[in-house]
């Protein structure tokens, strides 16, 4: 579902961190900015950076899991499984991610509820589709109708993570599929000569060696994933772009204690800096990982390390 976030009383608690903020109209200069930058809305903005990082942290391994599954399926010797894996990779990657996000979340949510409906309410006599409405029995609702708001939020976040993981899993599958095939054939032949079964050879030879081939593609995918996060607001997550727009837009004195003109440029500048710094940090970390993985590998980089040592 589209996680619609509730704004409730708890936002009030973080209001007015500074005691002098009670009457902003009288403030000027630094005091005004101090109060302005600590409003509940701004706090939500700062928290949303954490949300984005958390989503990335969960999505990356989840997408890897989908990717691994997809690559294994595509490699399978059983034709239908292999078609499934290849079809997943080709279709999801052929479609722009925005187009996917625009309908997939609702579809996913409905699919879950429909499945639960079939299991939990077998004797339900009304159709699930009533005109435009999608109606399932109360017990099948996700989250349940009486669930507190945080459950709704968590569920929305979970569905967003799943959607991201499915989309980027297809890209990861593609990279891993390529990497599995890039492991030198001789390595596998040697394993077979030693009497390893196909499965053993895969587990003990292919998987440990494929990472060095997969890493350039995976690091790129990570960069892409970072840059796809501005689309999170399409999935109903109130992310940094949502808040930057909301806070930056011109505000008239009637609706806020802190009226200002169109400040979107400054907020987007903050986002730009965030993304550039995050990209740079990722680059440095990934370079280190690559250097570590290349150690002792039969690749050009591994060769260079041996010579340098």
């Amino acid at each position, binding site marked *: 579902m589209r996680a619609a976030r509730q704004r409730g009383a708890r936002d009030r608690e973080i209001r007015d961190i500074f005691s002098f903020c009670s009457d902003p109209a009288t403030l000027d200069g630094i005091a005004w900015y101090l109060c302005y930058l600590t409003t509940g809305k701004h706090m939500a903005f700062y928290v949303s950076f954490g949300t984005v990082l958390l989503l990335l942290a969960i999505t990356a391994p989840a997408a890897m899991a989908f990717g691994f599954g997809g690559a294994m399926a595509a490699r399978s010797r059983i034709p239908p499984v292999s078609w499934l894996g290849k079809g997943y990779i080709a279709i999801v990657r052929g479609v722009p991610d925005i187009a996917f996000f*625009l309908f997939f979340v609702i579809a996913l949510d409905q699919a879950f509820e429909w499945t639960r409906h079939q299991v939990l309410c077998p004797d339900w006599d009304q159709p699930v589709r009533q005109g435009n409405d999608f109606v399932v029995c109360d017990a099948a609702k996700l989250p349940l109708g009486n669930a507190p708001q945080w459950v709704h939020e968590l569920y929305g976040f979970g569905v967003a993570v799943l959607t991201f993981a499915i989309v980027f899993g297809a890209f990861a599958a593609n990279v891993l599929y390529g990497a599995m095939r890039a492991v030198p054939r001789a390595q596998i032949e040697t394993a077979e000569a030693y009497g390893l079964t196909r499965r053993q050879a895969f587990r003990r030879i292919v998987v440990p060696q494929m990472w060095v081939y997969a890493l*350039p593609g995976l690091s790129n995918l990570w960069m892409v994933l970072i840059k796809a996060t501005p689309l999170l607001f399409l999935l109903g997550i109130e992310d940094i772009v949502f808040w930057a727009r909301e806070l930056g837009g011109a505000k008239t004195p009637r609706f806020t204690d802190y009226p200002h003109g169109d400040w979107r440029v400054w907020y987007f500048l903050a986002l730009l800096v965030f993304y550039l710094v995050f990209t740079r940090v990722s680059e440095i970390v990934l370079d280190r990982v690559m250097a570590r993985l290349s150690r002792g590998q039969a690749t050009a980089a591994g060769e260079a390390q041996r010579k340098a040592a």
Partner: protein
Amino acid sequence: MSCWETIADYGLRSIGIGERLLPRSDFTLCQQFVLIGSGLIWNVYFGVLALSAGFFLATTVALGKASSNPVARTLSTWFIFVFRGSPLFIQFFFAYFAFLSLKSVSPVFDPFTTAWAGALVVLFLNTAAYSGEIFHGALQSIPRGDTEAADAYGFHGWAKFRKITWPTMLRLAWPAYTNEAIFLFHATTLVFFSGFPAWQQRGDALYYASYFADKTFNPFVPYPILAGYFILLTLGIIGLFGLVNRRLNRHLPSSVRPKVRFRPNLIR
């Protein structure tokens, strides 16, 4: 109204030819297919022009990043970093804002606040940065033997670049460059979605898809249609780039030719 009439009325609607008003009620599947397809004209326009212009800038930037001149190197490195390090979404925002401010400076900038010119510039710079990085990577991995052989044959300067370095670079970069092309076409859907306003309801495929989703309140028809079109477009690009790849590698025996696969090394 038959589907042929719909095609006549709306087939070129996205570029302002045909019926002035979009359908407003009783939406048919045919209308959705035709209008979303009509919007695809813009995606192709942005993709083709940005890609072909970006190709030349990308070559320049790749050479700049690999050059021994510190100014050229720093400029190219930063250009690539800024455009690869920030979301296209944010680039569109800043570009639109910058073009608006420039408009008051000189009327030369007038067209740039509209998508056909402004968004094209952004996509051009964006793809130049991504392809520049791909080409730079390829330049770095040109086998030493190739350039040494060229030196031995007395090639130098422009002739060496034109006959040896550049073709080898392209050959090495082509699979990754194919993926960049695909992603650029996908990225064109962001133009009207976040960056630039749509004039007189002339927009790209995503614009019309969301028009129908908005009017029919049913996202499950127009977006899958859009997805279908893009899968076809992607297949077209792979085919076309595959032909170029064959030509680039025509001197190699067919068994060792690298195939263009939709396998990204460098992606958006």
